[in-house]
């Protein structure tokens, strides 16, 4: 596959804060690349540099062979951006919103009307096309937000956490739309902190934490980084923090975390370690009320790589 996006050594600071440090990644034509990381990891800063909104302090971004930057009109024409926050005009209708951005991207009259109609159909807003966007539900606004990004048929579509705050039904519709775009040959760069979205959509995933890309590969590659480890989840009653501390020192446990009342342990092999884990919790003021053993997922990979959970 040919390379559509190439980022080399991206760096960007805001005052003393180093938001992005040496990020390099690439996206091929027709590939969906997921940038996975918790809030504040540097995903949006990366996206801003890739979309030409921010000039990197160091490093380069190339889209379809053209250098990207705030004044790079040709490169910007190849990119569609769906910002994390809604970026629509609430006092304009869906059709007017789309028509405005179509004009801004230079779509000529006949083609413009055709594309507006097509996108309205794709995002399911044809029936409400003439209503003010401010009267739409949250999910409809999100769909319009995405529709504007794909309007000019960019070769690379960047979606920055497009499902934040969206109801399950709309979320599923958005994910299906992204899957369709990728099969149509568009390159997609998708940022999220929802592990299940990355697992469902992405051909390759980059895990970013504190501005650094800590790992990259397919889901299988990333999970393989953990080795033959298992995840043991101990649901507890009582002092869950003490239970986690006790589990952390058990032989074969490589990392631990707490999710509400559950201690999550990454262990070399679950079966021989389980009695020791239960015994360790028994020495504390907590009791085990349930046990689950499963294979690791991206959440566990993140825990393994960064020592913390992938969530807000």
């Amino acid at each position, binding site marked *: 596959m040919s390379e559509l996006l190439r980022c080399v050594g991206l760096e960007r600071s805001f005052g003393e804060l180093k938001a992005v440090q040496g990020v390099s990644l690439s996206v091929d034509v027709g590939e969906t690349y997921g940038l996975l990381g918790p809030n504040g990891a540097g995903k949006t800063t990366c996206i*801003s540099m890739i*979309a*030409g*909104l921010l000039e990197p302090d160091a490093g380069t971004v190339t889209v379809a062979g053209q250098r990207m930057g*705030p*004044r790079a*009109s*040709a490169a*910007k*024409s190849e*990119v569609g*951006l769906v*910002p994390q*926050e*809604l*970026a*629509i*005009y*609430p*006092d*304009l209708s869906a059709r*007017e919103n789309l028509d*405005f*951005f179509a*004009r*801004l*991207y*230079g779509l000529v009259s006949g083609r413009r009307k055709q594309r507006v109609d097509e996108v309205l159909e794709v995002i399911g807003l044809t029936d409400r096309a003439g209503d003010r966007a401010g009267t739409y539900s949250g999910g409809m606004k999100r769909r319009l937000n995405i529709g*504007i990004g794909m309007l000019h048929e960019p070769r690379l579509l960047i979606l920055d956490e497009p499902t934040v705050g969206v109801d399950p039904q709309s979320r599923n519709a958005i994910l299906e739309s992204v899957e369709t775009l990728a099969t149509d040959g568009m390159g997609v760069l998708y940022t999220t902190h929802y592990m299940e979205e990355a697992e469902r959509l992405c051909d390759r995933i980059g895990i970013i934490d504190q501005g650094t890309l800590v790992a990259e590969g397919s889901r299988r590659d990333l999970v393989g980084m953990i080795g033959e480890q298992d995840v043991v989840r101990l649901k507890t009653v009582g002092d869950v923090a003490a239970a986690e501390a006790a589990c952390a020192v058990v032989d074969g446990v490589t990392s631990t975390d707490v999710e509400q009342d559950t201690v999550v342990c990454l262990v070399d092999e679950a079966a021989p370690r389980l009695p020791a884990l239960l015994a360790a919790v028994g020495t504390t003021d907590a009791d085990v009320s349930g046990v689950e053993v499963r294979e690791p997922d991206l959440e566990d990979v993140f825990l393994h790589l960064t020592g913390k959970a992938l969530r807000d």
Partner: protein
Amino acid sequence: MLRAATVILRKDLRLRLRDRSVLLFAFVVPLALTFVFSQLFPTQEDFELTAGVVDLDGGEVAAGFTDGVVPALVADGLVDATTFGDEAAARAALEDGEIAAAWILPPGLSDGVAAGDGGDILVLVNPDRALSVEVARGIAEGYRAELDRISLVVATTATAAQGALSTQQLEEIAGLAAAQAPTVTTTELIAADQQLDPTSYLAAGMAVFFLFFTVTFGITGFLEERQQGTLHRLLAAPIGIGTVHLGKAMGAFVLGIVSMTVLAIASATLLGASWGDPVGVAVLIVAGVISALGVMAFVGSFARTAEQAGNLQSIVALVFGLAGGVFFPVGAGFLGQLALFSPHGWFLRGLGDLVGSDHWTVVLPAAGALVAFGVVFAVPGALRMRRATA
């Protein structure tokens, strides 16, 4: 760049036309206020000053005022005069509200003028009747200038006669000079140092005052784009930040021009205002809009949100408007000098010059000052906004 800026302009105008507040600020409120104020402040035709006259001098010079100036003003329908025997009677009438002002011609007035020392008239006023006070003072001031002239005539004559004239003869000369003195004209009294009639002055004042609010929609529009996230989307398109600024400025410029033009035409046709030569008015309107854009862009560059910008811009528009005399003529004194530091003052001065002249080019100095205001403020404003967006 121009194509994309025009696309932004069209979108902004569409949004603004749906936003009723713009229509209110740009058209309805200034026209309504002009109408209301023009009813509150009488024009020269329907104004009448009820004034008292107290002649404590009894000489020829005082007679020049009581028998010359006052009857002429009464004949013009500007003054309704009552003669009082002493100052106390005039004060009582003033306190009772029977008169709005009184002129006291002090004892020795004629002697002072005959001696070449000039003279003055005491004016008693009711401060609650502002326009009457101004007119009464204006009449007294006008006659005082005449007394100075008469004193000069007498002093010159006495010097030429080398002491051959008696005091009585000098008084007669002063009386003759007073009788020949031109009457104080009502144009000088009401219009002070500008030639716009009150309705035209109010219409122009309100138009330029609200112009500074109308153009703020361009500046706050930029901040609104930032607040609602659409600025990122605009900047992700194949355009630069300069195009966005240009589109916003063009929107504000068009709104300003349309607003001023509509107000000029509407005030002329509905309220009888006279703005002067259309070419000169057009030049002043364009220059006025440029100045408003520059000033408001600069002020807006200090704000982080549209609300902040709106508040700051309102304060500045109000201060400049008051300093420029949009609500009342500022005359030629300190307030007149202060008005030169306000684009509003230059706009009104330009219109005043235009009405008093046969050629539109008289507005060029005022138009130049307005453009200079715009440029001086716009350059640092644009730099600040550019830095804030980077």
